[in-house]
C-alpha cells in the first residue's frame, strides 16, 4: 500500500474510541478481536470515505439535494422516486481513487481467490440507535470480487437514503448535519448454524442467564424474523441448559452456489426442521463466550454469532442491549436484614403485612 491508509483500517486495529471515525459496528468488532474473542477478520471503511465520495462527486451531492428538497415524507410515491434517484446517483458515482485503492488492497488481504465477505453498514457510535430505528442497516452477504465489494459499499451508503431513513430525518428536521456512516467488510462464515444471543434473559432480566436463538444456515433468518428459531436459556454460572424450545425451522439462507455471489433462501429438509440445531456442548461454549464479551464491555450485549463448517463459534457482531426487563422485584437500594426478610416470609415483622 502506498502512503498511510486514510480511509480504511484492519478490524483488529480498531477500538471503541474509533467509533466516531469508523462507526460502532467496526469499533465493537475491533474491541472483540483485541479481547481475543474469535471474530472473522476484515477491515473497516471510515465515515470520512463517504465524505470523500461526496467531495469527489459534486453531481452526486446535487442529485441528493434535488431529490430530497421539499420532499413531503408523507408522499410515498415521491419518497420512492427520491430513493431510486439517489441510489442511481450513488451507484454511478466513482469511488475516489485513493479510497478504491485502499479497499482493493484490504480486500486482497482477506484471502485469495475473491473470498466471500459480508459488507455491512457501521453507523457512527452516537447514531447507532437512531440508525437501527431508521433502518439504515444494510447487510450484503456472500459478496465476492473487488468490484462487487465496492458496489456493496456504495449500497451501504445508499441505505442512508432509504425511504425510512429519509422520512425519519425529515420528521427530526433539527439535524442539519449531512448523514454519514462507516462500512464493515468481514470475511464471510459459511455458517451451518447461526443466531443471536443476549448476555441476560431479556424477558425476565435475569443476569445469570444467556438467552440463545439459533437456526440453520446464515444468520439472516433469525435476525430478520423469517424463522421461529430454537430458543435456549443457558446458565452463565454452570453453563447448563436450563430451558430449551425446539421449533420448526422451515427455511434457511445459504450461499447461492459454488464460486457465485449472494445468498438464496431454501426450505430446510424435513430431517432437520424439528431437530435442535445446537447441542449442549455448543451452547455451553456460547455461554462462556457470552460471559467473556459481557465482561469485556462491562454491560449486557446483544451478539450475532455463527458456527462455521468445523463447528467453531465465531462472533459477527456485538452491541449493547438497550432494552432489558428488570426483574419483577427491583433490587433493594439498601440492604435488608436477613431476619426482617425471614419474619416477613412468615407474615410477621415490620416488612410483613
Amino acid at each position: 500500500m502506498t502512503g498511510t491508509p486514510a480511509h480504511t483500517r484492519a478490524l483488529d486495529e480498531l477500538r471503541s474510541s474509533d467509533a466516531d471515525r469508523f462507526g460502532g459496528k467496526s469499533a465493537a468488532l475491533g474491541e472483540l478481536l483485541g479481547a481475543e474473542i474469535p471474530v472473522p477478520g476484515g477491515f473497516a471503511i471510515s465515515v470520512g470515505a463517504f465524505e470523500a465520495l461526496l467531495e469527489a462527486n459534486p453531481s452526486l451531492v446535487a442529485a441528493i439535494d434535488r431529490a430530497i428538497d421539499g420532499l413531503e415524507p408523507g408522499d410515498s410515491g415521491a419518497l420512492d422516486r427520491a430513493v431510486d434517484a439517489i441510489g442511481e446517483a450513488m451507484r454511478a458515482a466513482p469511488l475516489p481513487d485513493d479510497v478504491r485503492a485502499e479497499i482493493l488492497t484490504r480486500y486482497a488481504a482477506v484471502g485469495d481467490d475473491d473470498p466471500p465477505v459480508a459488507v455491512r453498514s457501521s453507523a457512527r457510535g452516537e447514531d447507532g440507535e437512531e440508525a437501527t430505528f431508521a433502518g439504515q442497516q444494510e447487510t450484503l452477504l456472500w459478496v465476492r470480487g473487488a468490484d462487487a465489494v465496492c458496489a456493496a459499499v456504495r449500497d451501504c451508503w445508499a441505505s442512508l437514503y432509504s425511504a425510512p431513513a429519509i422520512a425519519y430525518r425529515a420528521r427530526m428536521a433539527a439535524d442539519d448535519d449531512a448523514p454519514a456512516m462507516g462500512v464493515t467488510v468481514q470475511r464471510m462464515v459459511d455458517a451451518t448454524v447461526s443466531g443471536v444471543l443476549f448476555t441476560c434473559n431479556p424477558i425476565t432480566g435475569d443476569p445469570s442467564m444467556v438467552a440463545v436463538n439459533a437456526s440453520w444456515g446464515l444468520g439472516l433468518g433469525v435476525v430478520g424474523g423469517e424463522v421461529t428459531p430454537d430458543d435456549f436459556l443457558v446458565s452463565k454460572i454452570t453453563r447448563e441448559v436450563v430451558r430449551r424450545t425446539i421449533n420448526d425451522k422451515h427455511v434457511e439462507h445459504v450461499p447461492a452456489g459454488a464460486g457465485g455471489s449472494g445468498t438464496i433462501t431454501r426450505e430446510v429438509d424435513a430431517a432437520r426442521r424439528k431437530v435442535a440445531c445446537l447441542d449442549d456442548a455448543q451452547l455451553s461454549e456460547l455461554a462462556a463466550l457470552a460471559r467473556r464479551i459481557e465482561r469485556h464491555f462491562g454491560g449486557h450485549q446483544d451478539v450475532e454469532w455463527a458456527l462455521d463448517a468445523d463447528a467453531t463459534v465465531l462472533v459477527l457482531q456485538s452491541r449493547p442491549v438497550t432494552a432489558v426487563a428488570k426483574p419483577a422485584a427491583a433490587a433493594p437500594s439498601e440492604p435488608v436484614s436477613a431476619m426482617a426478610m425471614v419474619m416477613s416470609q412468615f407474615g410477621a415483622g415490620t416488612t410483613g403485612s
Partner: protein
Amino acid sequence: MYPYYTLYAEPRRELDEQRLWFWNSQHFPVPMPAFDVVAIDGPYQAVGAWQNRTFAVPPAMGIDYRIVNGYVYISANYVTDPAKMAERAGFFEKRAGHYFSNWDSLYGEWRGKMEALLAEITALEVPDLPEYESDDVAFGDQRISHVRLLEAYDRTLRCADEMWEHHFEFLLLGYGAYATFSDFCKSQLPDIPDQHVAQMVAGIDVILFRADAELRRLARLAIETGVDGAFVEGRTPDEIDADLATSEAGRAWLEALEAIKDPWFNMGTGDGLYHYYGSWYDDPTIPYASLIGHVAALHAGREIDRPTEEIERERDRLADEYSSLMEPAAAQTFRELLGLSRTVFPYVEEHKFWCDYWFQARFFNKVREFGALLARHGFLEDGEDIFQLSRHEVGTALDELSLSWATGGVPLGPAHWPPIAARRKELLARLADWTPPPALGTMPETVSDPMTVMLWGVTPARLQEWARAADDVDSRELRGAPASPGVVEGRARVMSGVGDLSQVREGEILVCTITSPAWAPIFSKIRAAVTDIGGVMSHAAIVCREYGMPAVVGTGRATATIKTGQLLRVDGVTGTVTILDDGPQS
C-alpha cells in the same frame, strides 16, 4: 380400624368439600396399618403445636388429615383475619427470633435431649406377667407387674410423642429461612434453577452421608485384606457373613463392621413412618447391597468417594458468582440469608437420622415386645400382628390382659383380636392395589403454604398437571419438577414398596412414589430417579444432586403409568420423563 376422627364424616362434610386435600404419598405411600396411625397423629400434633400454638406463625396453623381407603390426605389450616395475624405476629417475632439468634446452642441442647430419649426407649423394660409376683413385690418396693406393664406401654407412646415434639421444634423455622433465601434468589435472578439454590445451602459433611462413607471405607478394607470375594451380587447378608466367617481376615472384617454399627446401623431402610421400615440392624440388605456395589466399583477402577472438596468448592463458587451479578445492597442481603440458611440447614438435613430412623426403629421394636407378650398370652397369633391394632386397641387389650391375669378369669381377647388382625391384613393387601387420586376436594387459587410447596412440591400448576394426566392415561410423557440436572436413558424399575429394593439392578431408572434418603447407598447403582411426589427440597432430590444423577420429582402418576422394563428417557433439566418403548420383548 382407624380412629373416628381420621375419617370424612357428615358433621364436617360441607367444610371438607370446600378444601383441597392432597394425598401425602411422600410420607404415606401405602395404606396405613392401624397401629401406624401413631406416626400420623404424632407428627401432626407436634407440627401444629409448634407452628400454631407456640411460634404462632401469623397466617398458618396446622395440618388436618383424613384417611381414605387407608391412604392419608392432608390439608392446611390458615388464619385470614388481619387482627388475628397481627396478634400472632407479636408472639412469632419474639419466639422465632430467639431461636434464630441462638440456633447453634439450642440445636446442641436438642441433640442432648434426643440422646436421652433414645437411651430411654432402648432401655425401657416391658415386664411380663408372672404366675407369682417376685419377693421384691412382697418384701421390697417393686410395684405390681401389670401396673408396670401398663405404665411401660404409656411411656412407650409418650416417648414417641416426645420424639415428634423434638422433630418439629426447629424444622419449620429451618424451612422458612431456606424458603426466604430461595424466594430472594428468585426475585433477583428469576430464572435461577431451584437446584442451584439448594446446592448453595446444602451441607457438606452431614450425617446422612456418613454411614455410606463408613461403608466405602469397609469396601476398601475388604479389598486390602483380600476378603472382597465374599461380596457377590445376589448374595444375602447372611451368605456373605457365613463366607467371611470362614477366614481369619474375614472375621477381622466382620469385627470392623461391628465397630461402626453404633450409631451408623441406625440408618433406616425406609423413612421411619411405617412399622416395617426398620433400621439396618433389623435388615442389613441395604448396607450389604451398597458394599457389593462399592467393591465392584473399586474393582472397575472407579472413584467411589464423595468429592467433598469439589462439592464445597462448587457450592462456594455458585454463591460467589451469583452474588457478583447482584447490586451491592442485594448482594449483602443475599450473603446474610445464605449464612442463615447454612446455619439452619444441618438440622433440616440431620433430624431425620435421629428421629425418623434411629428413634422410630427403636420405638417399633419396643412395640414388638408388647406384641410378643400379647402373643404369648394368646391375644395375637403372631407378635407382629400388634400393628394391625390401633394404639388405643392395644391399650384395651393390655387392660383386659392385666385384668384376666390378676383375676385368673378367662379373657375374651384370644377370641376377639386374632380374627380382627387377620381381616385387616387382607384388607390392607387389597387396598395396596388401588392408586389413590393425587388430590381431592376444591382446587385453590393459590398454594400459599411454603411447607406445602417446598416439601411436597404441590403448586397449582402441579395440580393441573395431575388433573391432565388423569384424563390422559395413555400418555407417553410425564412432567414433574426438575430436581437434579442431566439427561439419561435406561430401563425402568418400578417400586411400590421398600421390599423391592434388592431387585434394583445396575443402570436401571428407579421409579417410585417417593425415595427415602436411607436408600442413598443403592443410588450408586441406578442411573436416574423418578418419583410421584416430592419437591426440589425433598431428601431424594438432595441425594440425587449429590450423586450427580438426573431426577424428576412430583410427576403425580409415574408409578401408575410406567411399567418395569420400559425404556425411559429422564430429563432432569426440563422435568420430563418419556417412555421410549415397552420393554426388551417389544
